[in-house]
Every structure is written in structure tokens, then in C-alpha cells.
């Protein structure tokens, strides 16, 4: 796959930390003060959930080199597990609910990752579709998962951590932000460790990795497990912090593709790539719709918008793969070096 280095070659140099601190400062203080409810609800919360899902997929696809088309299934497992834990074991602290949801998604991820021990490339990508269809089917078919709702729709309970409610718009935003920040930090630690190097080793040359002594099978399963854990937690954010009413169809194949597209556009094997890509995916439909109605007026109805969204998204994928396989992150880094040389 693409040649991307681990970003944090000098993890403790000042500019890196300063930039991170600045971003977190803006996210925790500036945004809640300034952003409207609309921006939080329609842009930032879905952005956070999708970023986390893309981060999870990037562990598997970007770092470990295994393409999955079943991400939405693992989001769904996370969301429905959290729903059932909260419903059936009332009083379970929210962090524990998140952890259980993550582990459930990891378990399903490991199960559907088993083929990776024998299959590579396309065959593996196709086999992850099995997860996509099976999970969606099971959640629609068995109404136990949705507490008896015949079409699998669930309404998530209010968020609260140790008695502190996070149910307002700002509360849900801060909750999502905190979950994403913590997991992103852990992933950062992971990818600069030997485990992260093992992922890349398997991606870049499986035979050489095996000969050197990388435990190939265990590492592949680990990538599936960690990746689905993160995607599962992202599913909880999607359901609990963003939509609050979800159905299995919301976790369909298009969602899986969307997450894959995020990392292709943002940058494979890059932590920032997940965020860059998610930002573009969340913002571009709005831009397109404004632009479309500005240029075409009444001709640009919702049907046309839908189709032109598909076309632009597809074209973006192809253009990035051709012109900038390392994604928005690489574009950004080039831009930054030109504008602020020496950083």
C-alpha cells in the first residue's frame, strides 16, 4: 500500500505537542463557547463519531494493510451492545458500557477476521462483506436486540457519567470529544510501538515479516480486534451522541464505504488522516448543496443533490488515489511546509 511513515517520528518535540494542545484547547473551550447548536449537532458530533470509526479502520487497513468493507457492521454491534447493556443492566457506568460495546465489536471483528489467516487482498475484502450482511440481517431479524421493535429501531438513553448529565448538545459534544481524544492518544501510542511496526511490516512484506519473527497470524487478528473495538465505540457515539434513534439500515454498506473513503481521502496509515477525511466527508455535502442551488437554483433538487454527491465522492476517491495516494494529510503537510518553513 502507500508509503506513509509513522507521523510522530519526534513525539516529544515542542511543535507537535503545541499543535495538539492548541487543537484540544479550541475543541474544549472555543467550540462550546462559539459554535451554534446546529454546527455541533449537524457537523461536529457526526464528525467526531466518523473520525473515530475511520481511525479504527485505519488501524486495520492503513497500518496493517487489510481492507475491510464491513466497518458499519462493527459500528452497529457497538451501538446495539451499548443499548442492551444500558437497558438490561441499568446503572452500569457509561465508561463500562463503552468498554463492553467495544469488546463485543472486537469479538465479532475477531470472528470475521479469522478468514484473514488464510485469505489476502480481495478475497479478504469480500469476506468482510459477510460481516456487513450478517450483522445487519441479525439486528433486523431478531427483535431482542432492539427490545422488541419489529424493525430494529432503538432509542438511546440519555448520557450521564457518574451522575453528571451529558445530554444537552454541548454535553454530548464534550462526551464524544473526550472519548475520541482518549482513544486517539492510545492509538498514537500503539502505532509508534513495536505492535504498530508489526502491523506495517505485515502490510509491506508479509514474508519478510514472518521470517524476521513477527507473529503474523496473531498480529493480523490483533489488528482486527483493536480496529473493531474502536469502530464499535464509534458506533456508540454515532447512536448515543449523534442520532439517538438508529436502525440497522443506518449501518449499511454505504456507511462502510463512507468510512473506507474517509481514510482514502484523509490519508492511509495516518492518525490525522482519519480526522481530515471525516471533516471533508461531513462538510462536502453541505458545500455541494449550497453551491448547487446557487448555480442551478430550482433545478438542483434533492434527487440531483444525492446523485451529484455520489459522483463527486466517487471522483474524489479516484482523484486522490491517482494524484495524492497519501491523502489530505500529505497535501496539508506540503502546504504547511511552504507557508511555515522550518516547522
Amino acid at each position: 500500500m502507500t508509503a506513509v511513515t509513522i507521523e510522530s517520528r519526534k513525539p516529544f518535540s515542542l511543535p507537535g505537542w503545541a499543535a495538539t494542545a492548541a487543537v484540544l484547547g479550541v475543541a474544549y473551550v472555543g467550540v462550546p463557547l462559539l459554535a451554534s447548536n446546529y454546527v455541533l449537532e449537524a457537523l461536529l458530533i457526526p464528525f467526531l463519531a466518523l473520525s473515530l470509526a475511520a481511525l479504527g479502520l485505519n488501524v486495520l487497513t492503513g497500518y496493517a494493510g487489510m481492507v475491510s468493507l464491513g466497518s458499519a457492521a462493527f459500528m452497529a454491534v457497538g451501538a446495539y451492545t451499548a443499548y442492551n447493556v444500558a437497558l438490561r443492566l441499568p446503572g452500569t457506568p457509561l465508561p463500562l458500557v463503552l468498554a463492553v460495546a467495544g469488546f463485543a465489536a472486537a469479538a465479532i471483528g475477531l470472528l470475521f477476521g479469522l478468514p484473514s489467516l488464510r485469505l489476502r487482498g480481495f478475497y479478504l475484502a469480500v469476506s468482510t462483506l459477510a460481516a456487513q450482511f450478517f450483522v445487519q440481517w441479525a439486528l433486523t431479524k431478531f427483535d431482542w436486540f432492539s427490545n422488541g421493535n419489529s424493525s430494529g429501531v432503538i432509542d438511546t438513553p440519555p448520557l450521564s457519567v457518574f451522575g453528571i448529565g451529558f445530554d444537552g448538545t454541548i454535553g454530548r459534544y464534550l462526551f464524544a470529544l473526550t472519548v475520541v481524544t482518549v482513544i486517539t492518544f492510545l492509538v498514537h501510542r500503539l502505532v509508534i510501538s513495536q505492535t504498530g511496526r508489526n502491523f506495517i511490516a505485515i502490510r509491506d512484506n508479509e514474508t519478510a515479516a514472518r521470517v524476521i519473527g513477527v507473529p503474523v497470524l496473531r498480529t493480523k487478528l490483533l489488528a482486527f480486534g483493536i480496529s473493531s473495538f474502536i469502530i464499535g465505540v464509534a458506533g456508540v457515539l454515532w447512536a448515543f451522541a449523534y442520532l439517538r434513534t438508529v436502525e440497522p439500515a443506518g449501518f449499511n454498506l454505504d456507511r462502510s464505504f463512507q468510512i473506507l473513503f474517509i481514510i482514502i481521502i484523509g490519508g492511509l496509515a495516518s492518525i490525522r488522516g482519519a480526522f481530515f477525511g471525516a471533516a471533508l466527508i461531513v462538510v462536502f455535502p453541505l458545500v455541494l448543496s449550497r453551491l448547487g442551488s446557487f448555480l442551478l437554483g430550482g433545478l438542483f433538487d434533492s434527487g440531483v443533490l444525492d446523485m451529484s454527491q455520489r459522483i463527486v465522492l466517487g471522483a474524489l476517491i479516484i482523484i486522490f488515489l491517482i494524484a495524492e495516494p497519501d491523502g489530505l494529510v500529505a497535501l496539508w503537510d506540503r502546504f504547511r511546509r511552504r507557508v511555515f518553513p522550518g516547522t
Partner: protein
Amino acid sequence: MDGGFDWSFFVEVLTGGLLSGVMYSLVAIGFVLIYKTSGVLNFAQGSMVLFAALTFVSLLEKGMPFAVALALTLIAMILLGLAIERAVLRPLVNKAPITLFMATLGLAYVIEGSAQLIWGTQVHGLDLGIEDVPLEFSGVLVSTFDLFAAGVAAVMVIALTLFFRYTRVGLAFRAVADDQFAALAVGLRLPHIWATVWAAAGIVALVAGLLWGARLGVQFSLSLIVLKALPVLVLGGFDSIAGAIVGGLIIGATEKLGEVYIGDYFGGGIESWLAYAVALVFLLIKPSGLFGQKLVERV
């Protein structure tokens, strides 16, 4: 079922399954053509089927004669193939196969979007003039339409086989499928061959689109038959036309039998994943597929 097993019913279900399997094979063959020559798993094959069917049916509805509409669609599909080669494949030459695969995901979005932007999103009926009366063979009912589809598939496979075996272009195909570098070395022009192959895959998509469209109606969901073809390919191997046929038959039969005989235990609707389950179990036993060649790892 009180004790006795209804064999004629079983045969009927099996036959129906095998025949619908042929329909899967029709789509799968388009994949195989492209995979054999360019090593790309073309996820956009389904959207090409949609594009072809939608174009044809829309031209028909504009009052064009059947033959003219068919010819124009054929031309459109060939142009589409050429455009894909020029705009997507050529810039990505020598990239990892999985990169090309992801590009075809993007391509699928572009083609689906364009087809519906041009022709609209409503559902069209498509009548090929084949009456779907069930024929009876010694107590077993078989759909005429399915038989017709099987016949078309057979003709197409024979035509492709003859083409590969006896024409210059076919020989070039096989050379490229065998070894791209060697083919390059002896002076075969890869872009030219790829363009031809994609155009051919477009024609296969047209055939599949007409048959599937006649059965399901021409609509967006037509592009989702790609998802039916993938387990067939996993089973049969991405590079084998014979595998696509046999894989299609196996998947078709298993789906219908599974739906009828064990579907109720699962609450129905299992056809959305049964094909994948079958393909996966099979792959775990035999990773190279039914007919796929086992390659020696070169280091």
C-alpha cells in the same frame, strides 16, 4: 412433510436455484474478464450493469426501435470502457491491486450517480418479449425466462471461449493474463488490450443488465447484484470463467435450497448472507478457489 420427502419439489427448487445461479454467473463473467487481464477486481461491474440497463430502457421509452436502442447502448458501453481505461486505469498502472480495487469503488459511485442523474431514479419495466410461462418437465416446473437466460449465458460463454482461443486479440488477452511483463516485452500494447477488455466487460454488463432488468425492473438496486456476484467469484476464483459458472450454480442452488429448507429456522431472509457463508467456509478449506491456480510464492 410427514415422513416422505417430496423429491419432485426438491428438484424443482434445485432447478430454480441452478437457473438463478446462471444469472449470477452472467455478472461474475464480467469480473473475470477484467481480472484475468488487468488483475483488478472491478467493483464497478454492478454499476455498469445498471448503467447499461438504464440507458437501454430509457432509449426504448423515448420511442426508439429495439435494435437501435441496443446498438446505441452497446456503443455507450464501449465508450464507457474506453473512458475508464483512459481516466482511471492508465494513471494507476503499476499500483497495488488493492489500490485499483478501491478506485473501482469510487468508479462504481461515479457510474451509478451519472446513470441516475442522466436517466432519473424511477423504476422502469423492461419487457424482452419472453413470456414467463412455467414449462413442465416430468412433473417439475421450470421458468421459461430462466431457461432463456441460461441459453443466453451459454451462448456468451461459448462466444468468449471461441474468442479467446481463436482470435489474435484473444491470444493477446491470454498472454497478458499469463504474464503482464512478458506480454509487454513482446510488444503487446497493454492499454489497448485493457480498453478492449473493459469494453467487452461493458457488453457483458449489457447482457446481464437486460436479463436482470427484465426480471427485477430497471432500478438502482440492479447495481447491487455485484454483491451477489462476489461470493460466486470467491468460490470460483477471480480468474476462471468456468469457476464463475460453477460457482454461480453452486451459490444459486444453495441459496434457494437454504431459503426453502432451513430459512424458517432462522426467521427467513438468510439469502442476504448465506452465499457469503458458503463461499467463506469453502475458502477456508480450499483458499485457491474451485479452479484458481495456486501460485508459487516468489521471493
